[in-house]
């Protein structure tokens, strides 16, 4: 018997069997308790509640949701709101993060210290603090609608939120977006052709200049044309509040500001680390070949820094999406607030609602890490 136990394979099987049995016992214990307790408390189970009328008011939605819609529609509204604030914050956090990260690397002592102060300030304070600070500290101190901050007479900021104009006809914008997509595809094709030609004949092509026109200037022209072609619903002061246009509620603005400035601090550190990971010898060698400073950055630094930067930046984006759940603390109607909060109170079906909510976040997370793996496999630095 003892000798039998000395066999490693036998012991491996035994350990695993033991662990499995232990796990199953614990799970069965919990599940039985849960079903007992649910029967006692008279809680229904199943997913039929998703098709019931919700009766829950959502003050901020772009899905056209009404309280007479189903709980499923409510969930969808929450998802859309989560995506809305996350997408906006991801863009701004990236811009601020790259700017601050590059500032941090400046040889100008003042500039890099300013960036360092920003980074250390943001990273060492809880995000919830910033969310509450923006909501109760900054936005609550804004003036009443009558004394709004006026931006060129078309956008108005007051304690009820940010009122922005809305186009009456979106067909022009749809056309413009289509045109922009075509331009981007054209630019990619052009870049490929230019690269192939340079490899073949050695002749240079001003890809970046053309790209700037194709993907930078022309889209602006297209959007401007579309904007001029339609009439606008500009918010105007009527009585005590602004009517018309679209109102970004203070909850959105506070959450957006907090998420973007907070995540930017983390992105800045990622960017700094990525650029510092490019060895000085690479830059020296590029300079010795006579490349201009701009080309050193474009052809040597960025291509080597990006594979280092992209994976951690993706996980920062993922954190941002998860952190948007802090909107629940100021009643911004995202997934957690409307579904785990309002819908759960209305139906009492805790297990189903928690499972769905966690499932949504896990799906987003899996999608992002799948992308990350794909990117890593594609851009692994080939070394000799």
């Amino acid at each position, binding site marked *: 018997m003892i000798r039998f136990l000395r066999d490693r394979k036998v012991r491996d099987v035994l350990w695993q069997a033991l*662990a499995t049995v232990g796990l199953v016992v614990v799970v069965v214990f919990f599940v039985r308790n849960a079903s007992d307790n649910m029967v006692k408390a008279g809680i229904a189970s199943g997913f039929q509640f998703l098709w019931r009328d919700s009766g829950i008011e959502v003050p901020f939605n772009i899905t056209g949701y009404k309280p007479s819609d189903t709980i499923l529609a409510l969930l969808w509204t929450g998802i859309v709101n989560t995506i809305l604030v996350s997408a906006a914050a991801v863009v701004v956090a990236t811009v601020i993060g790259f700017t601050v990260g590059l500032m941090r690397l400046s040889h100008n002592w003042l500039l890099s210290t300013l960036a360092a102060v920003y980074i250390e300030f943001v990273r060492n304070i809880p995000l919830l603090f910033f969310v509450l600070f923006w909501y*109760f500290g900054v936005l609550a101190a804004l003036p009443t609608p009558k004394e709004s901050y006026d931006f060129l007479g078309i956008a108005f900021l007051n304690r009820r939120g940010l009122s922005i104009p809305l186009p009456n006809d979106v067909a022009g914008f749809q056309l413009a977006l289509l045109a922009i997509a075509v331009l981007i595809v054209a630019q990619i094709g052009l870049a490929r052709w230019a690269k192939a030609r340079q490899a073949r004949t050695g002749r240079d092509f001003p890809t970046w200049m053309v790209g700037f026109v194709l993907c930078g200037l022309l889209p602006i022209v297209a959007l401007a044309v579309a904007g001029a072609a339609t009439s606008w619903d500009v918010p105007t002061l009527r009585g005590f509040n602004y009517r018309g246009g679209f109102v970004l509620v203070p909850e959105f603005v506070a959450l957006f500001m907090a998420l973007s400035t907070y995540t930017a601090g983390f992105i800045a550190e990622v960017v700094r680390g990525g650029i510092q990971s490019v060895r000085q010898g690479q830059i020296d060698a590029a300079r010795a070949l006579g490349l201009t400073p701009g080309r050193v950055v474009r052809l040597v630094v960025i291509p080597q820094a990006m594979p280092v930067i992209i994976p951690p930046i993706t996980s920062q984006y993922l954190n941002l999406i998860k952190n948007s759940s802090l909107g629940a603390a100021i009643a911004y109607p995202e997934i957690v607030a409307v579904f785990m909060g309002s819908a759960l109170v209305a139906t009492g079906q805790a297990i189903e609602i928690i499972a769905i909510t966690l499932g949504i976040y896990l799906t987003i997370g899996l999608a992002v890490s799948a992308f990350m793996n794909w990117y890593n496999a594609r851009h692994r630095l080939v070394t000799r």
Partner: protein
Amino acid sequence: MKAVRPPLPGWLETLRQRLFATPVDIAVSFLCLYVVWRISVPLVDWLLVEANWRGTSREDCTNAGACWVFIRARFAQFMYGQYPVPERWRVDLLGVLAVCVAAALSWRRLPRRREAAIAALVVLPPLGIWLLYGGLGLRIVETREWGGLMLTLFLAIYAGLIAIPLGILLALGRRSRLPLIRFASIVFIEFWRGVPIITVIFLASLLLPLIMPTGFNVDRLARAVIGLAFVIAAYMAEAVRGGLQALPDGQVEAAQALGLGYWRITRLIVLPQALRIALPAMTNEFIALFKNTTLVLIVSIFDLLGIAQAALADPAWVGMNMEAYVFAGAIYWFACFGLSQWSRRQEKRLSAAYGR
């Protein structure tokens, strides 16, 4: 040919190189100075110069600056929440005790340091719960009366005490030879890492009472601690895994050649080295935990930030939002910044001592 200007004496030359090397640099530097000036002058004005320091009520705040009278009047609440005043000595005693033990243990030449550390880890946590909660001769203070900074520290330390060992076990499990253990660890880690912490705190406060036998009540605060601990354990496991992966294979192979078993290799060879490498990453996770304790606000537990938030509702002190936030934020900032500086120092010391 460009004329080479002679170097200026001493620090002036450093200043020139760092700030005024080129015309662009000069412009940037002045722009920065302007920004600093525009931000810092009103800030210092509000924080210090124009601030009100003395008094007892809102009427004493006559200057244009911050009303620190408010913080003075509510200082005890920020520290203890609603903890009953005659019992607050217990919190103080625990705090003094913990600081003394930590100070003694951080003295490297303490005789029998390892044994003393283990003894402290076994004795202090239950002692702390007894002192704070009561029973056995002490008056019982329900957890809903706890609050403020004391609660923040309690959450961070007790969740950390669960999360660190659990995280180490999970990291070992993820690198285990046994496929079932490995699979279970991966599922546990990726699940908790994949969901927002706020949902976990919700989940813990809703599901824990449901899955326990009827009549067995899990305290509200304990639910929050367990929820936080599980998430942080998952993140902690990834930090430890980094340390495990950095360890050269030769270490384990040499130990195996000496005839040591799995647990002895892990305890004597792998963990001491891996944890040393993982220390900075683990400190980062602890800082994250400290920041994330604020999320218990969502289930109406009033930690430092929650107390600051609740103080805004006091009709006697309307409009003290900024003061409350600045005070709470400063405490969080100093705690987190201090921790990260400590971790950097440790990292330097260890890398100097072990050549990594």
